Every structure is written in structure tokens, then in C-alpha cells.
């Protein structure tokens, strides 16, 4: 059963029935799912959750959909890894990495899509759709295939081959759109009104967004039922960043953890940093930007939850940072070389910003910190391919190998390494 009871406008507080709608008809504010927390409190315990499946569906009572409609590819419940070598490299005593690269389609989007597709099926939709530059398209295509639903995926026509294949393999109706980023946004909004589809981040967005709360649930459970001092998460629309905090607060509301005092910080790439720029200017009103960064999974120039993300920074004592594309690559490499985790560009943004936040003293050495790594590196190999050490090329004999090694070591000494 579900304990979701209504949709509530985040601006004016008006409530609506649980339907596939996403904005308030009075003030046009965004709608969010409201729950019966007393009912959840009575229905679950740490013990009941621990006995649940090793996926995000272990938190079914806290999700806005009937689990009978779930399409579970093994979404969520990803490892929380103690990152001692990375902690030492950047100057923290205790750092954890929430490794969402190991989701079924290698990104945190499986969390939101898992919930969205269950709700879409519950509403009776037979087709699901999305507009995406990669991760979301991959996840929607995979879940639709597993559910046997029709699937329409809209992508910009200049997308890298890897991302096109990563959706195409599941055989959705793949549509490449010629036009600017704004054109694609406009087109997909228009199509969502014309066709009887569940557009995951438009008409079922209030439910879809709730999936990200499971990141907060898992971090708290995996830390032994408590919240950390600080969380650093990447920000695109700002939705995941705000929902992690909502998840921690809800865990407290239903009696699973003590009141969280986590400082929430957000990470963006300089080439698309409307939220971090507004934070730097000490305002809650961001100016939309035209994205230009290698971190395409974070390239949302007009972020739906930008205002709420900025408000959350104020409320929790967190902050925001931004990094250049070069720093994104450095961040990806640092995480890989210290912890053995290969992240996509968004992960490089998170690690780069975390490093800056620690270096500036904004995050204190003693603050127990969690970094959210939202997607796997094989999705964006072109970002780092030209920045790696050249392999040693040798003929198949030991002398050639030894000579190549001597030359490599000499060059490292020469370079002062």
C-alpha cells in the first residue's frame, strides 16, 4: 500500500488529488507528494526495512506508488564506501562515497524512473516518454522494455554515439531533435500535452522526483541509522539535491533517525552553474544560463528546483561550488585513482567541488562527509580519454618491457614525479 495522500503546491500549499499533474492551477507552482507520516510511522521500523529487498523498494511505504506496479531491475541500495584514500588526498578525516554508478543502467536515474514507471502503470498509462541527454533516456528505455511499455525518447541530434546506443539497445522509439536546447524543451512540453504518455519529468514529475529521496534513506541506513555532518551532491535541476535532504527529514519524522543536522552542499560545472552562481551572489533568484560544459548530465540552464536548492543551502548551512571542465577531469581521475571508482563527468564535478569546499575551509576536516557519485564513467569516456597516461607499447619479449619501464621511470623522474 502507499501512504501518499495528496499533491501539494510548494508555493501556495493548495492540495490536489493524486493525478498525473505537475503544477498548481492557481499560482503555477510545482506540486509535491504529501504523505500520511503517522501511518508510515506505525507501519515501518528499522527491522522491517532491514528485512526488505536489497533495492530501493525496501522503502516501499515511503514511496508514492503501489509496489504491485513496480518494475524493479535491482534499482538502488547501492554501496556506501568509506573513502579513506580520497579523504586523505583532499584533507578530510572521514569521507564516504555513495556509489550510484552501479545501478542497473549505471546512474541514479534508475531511482527516479523506478518510481515514475510504477506510478505511470498505476495510472494506467501504456506509454512512457522522456527528453534527455543520456542517463535518463537510458533508464527510461530499460525500464519500459522490462515493463513491456511503449517508449518514446527524445534526444538532441548531436549526442555522442555511446549515449544513443545506451538507449537504442532497449528498442524505444528514439527521436533525435534538430534545434537548440530551448527548442527541444519547448517541443517536449508541447508533446506532453498532446499525447497520452507518461512523460517522466513532466506530467509524472511529482512522483518521479520522489525516487531521489531513497539516496537520503540509504545513506542514513548504511551509516547505522544516522545522518552525516555534510553531504555534497551534484546539481542539475536541483531536484536530487533537495530530495536527499527531504529523505533525511522524513526518516526523522517517521522515527527512524534522530533529527538530522546535515549541511547540504551542491556542485555544478562552471559552464552551467545557475544555482552556484546565484549562491555566490547571495540571492535565491537564479538567472537561467545557456549550458556549455562537458558535464552534460548536469547541463540544465533553467533548473526547476533552483530556488528550492538555494533555500536549502540557507536552511542547512550548506553551500555551493563550481568547477571548470579541466577540474571535472581531475576530479574523475582523483576518484578513480584513490578509490577505484570510475565516475562520469557529474562525479568529477562533485569531487572537484568537494575538494574546493574542503580547501576553502567551508567543510571542516572533522566533518563526516558523504559525496554522491551519480553515474558511471563508461558513459562519458571521451571526457577523459585524452587525459590518461599513454600505454607502454612493447614487442613480446622481457627485454623490450624492461627497457620501456626504464624509459617510463626516467621520464617520471625527469618530470619531477
Amino acid at each position, binding site marked *: 500500500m502507499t501512504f501518499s495522500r495528496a499533491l501539494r503546491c510548494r*508555493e501556495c500549499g493548495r492540495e490536489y488529488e493524486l493525478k498525473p499533474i*505537475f*503544477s498548481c492551477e*492557481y*499560482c*503555477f*507552482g*510545482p506540486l509535491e507528494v504529501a504523505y500520511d507520516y503517522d501511518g508510515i510511522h506505525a507501519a515501518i521500523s528499522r527491522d522491517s526495512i532491514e528485512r526488505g529487498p536489497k533495492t530501493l523498494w525496501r522503502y516501499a511505504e515511503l514511496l508514492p506508488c503501489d509496489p504491485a506496479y513496480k518494475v524493479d531491475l535491482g534499482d538502488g541500495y547501492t554501496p556506501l564506501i568509506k573513502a579513506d584514500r580520497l579523504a586523505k588526498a583532499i584533507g578530510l578525516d572521514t569521507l564516504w562515497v555513495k556509489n550510484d554508478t552501479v545501478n542497473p543502467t549505471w546512474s541514479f*536515474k534508475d531511482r527516479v524512473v523506478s518510481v515514475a514507471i510504477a506510478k505511470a502503470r498505476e495510472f494506467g498509462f501504456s506509454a512512457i516518454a*522522456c*527528453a*534527455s*541527454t*543520456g*542517463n*535518463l533516456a537510458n533508464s527510461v528505455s530499460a525500464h519500459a522494455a522490462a515493463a513491456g511499455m511503449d517508449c518514446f525518447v*527524445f534526444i*538532441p541530434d548531436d549526442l555522442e554515439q555511446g549515449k544513443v546506443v545506451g538507449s537504442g539497445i532497449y528498442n524505444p522509439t528514439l527521436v533525435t531533435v534538430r534545434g537548440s*536546447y*530551448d527548442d*527541444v*524543451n*519547448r517541443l*517536449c*512540453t508541447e508533446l*506532453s500535452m498532446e499525447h497520452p504518455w507518461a*512523460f517522466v*519529468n*513532466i506530467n509524472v*514529475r511529482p512522483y518521479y522526483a520522489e525516487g531521489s529521496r531513497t539516496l537520503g534513506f540509504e545513506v542514513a541506513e548504511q551509516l547505522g541509522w544516522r545522518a552525516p555532518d555534510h553531504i555534497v551532491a551534484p546539481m*542539475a*535541476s536541483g531536484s536530487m539535491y533537495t530530495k536527499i535532504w527531504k529523505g533525511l527529514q522524513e526518516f526523522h519524522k517517521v522515527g527512524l533517525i534522530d533529527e538530522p543536522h546535515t549541511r547540504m552542499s551542491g556542485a555544478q560545472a562552471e559552464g552551467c552553474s545557475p544555482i552556484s552562481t546565484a549562491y555566490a*551572489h547571495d*540571492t*535565491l*533568484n*537564479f*538567472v*537561467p544560463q545557456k549550458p556549455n560544459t562537458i558535464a*552534460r*548530465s*548536469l*547541463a*540544465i*540552464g*533553467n*533548473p*526547476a*528546483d*533552483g530556488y528550492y536548492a538555494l533555500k536549502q543551502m540557507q536552511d542547512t548551512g550548506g553551500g555551493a561550488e563550481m568547477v571548470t571542465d579541466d577540474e571535472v577531469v581531475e576530479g574523475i581521475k582523483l576518484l578513480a585513482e584513490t578509490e577505484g571508482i570510475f565516475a562520469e563527468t*557529474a562525479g568529477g564535478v562533485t569531487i572537484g567541488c568537494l575538494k574546493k569546499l574542503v580547501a576553502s575551509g567551508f567543510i571542516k576536516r572533522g566533518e563526516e562527509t558523504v559525496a554522491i557519485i551519480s553515474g558511471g564513467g563508461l558513459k562519458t569516456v571521451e571526457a577523459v580519454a585524452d587525459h590518461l597516461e599513454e600505454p607502454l607499447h612493447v614487442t613480446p619479449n622481457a627485454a623490450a618491457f624492461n627497457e620501456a619501464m626504464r624509459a617510463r621511470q626516467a621520464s617520471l623522474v625527469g618530470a619531477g614525479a
Partner: protein
Amino acid sequence: MANKHVRLTFTPQLVQEPVIYNMGHQFKVITSIRMAAVDQSVGWVVLELEGEEDEIERALEWTRSKGVRVDEPTLGDVVEG
């Protein structure tokens, strides 16, 4: 008659200009402000426009020509990573 929702973002230089008032006078569109905020660095308005579809498009094109950013949909980008 058509109905459209847009978000207008104004730079500080434009905040003092009566853009919405002028839009309503120069074009046959009815404007209704649903949400808005303004501070030192930016101002934005979520606006409902009612009128003939062509007239709404002309009004928005004129608004863009004044240097105002016009976004549809009003709740932010729908193309996600």
C-alpha cells in the same frame, strides 16, 4: 483563443521598464502574473497570456527583442541528463 504560460527573466537594467504593461498595450493579449520576484541582480515573472496564438507569439518575440529572456515551460528545463 489560446493560452500560454511563460517565465520572463529581466536583467537589472530592464527591471524598471514597464515591459508587461507595454506588451498588453502593443499587442492584443491579456496578461496575468501568477508568480514573481525581484532582487538586486535579477527579476522574474511567471505570466499567463491569453489571446490569438499568432498575437501571443508576436508579443513574445517583441519581449525577447527587448532583451528579456523568455522560457517555456515555466517550471524549468525538461531535457534532463
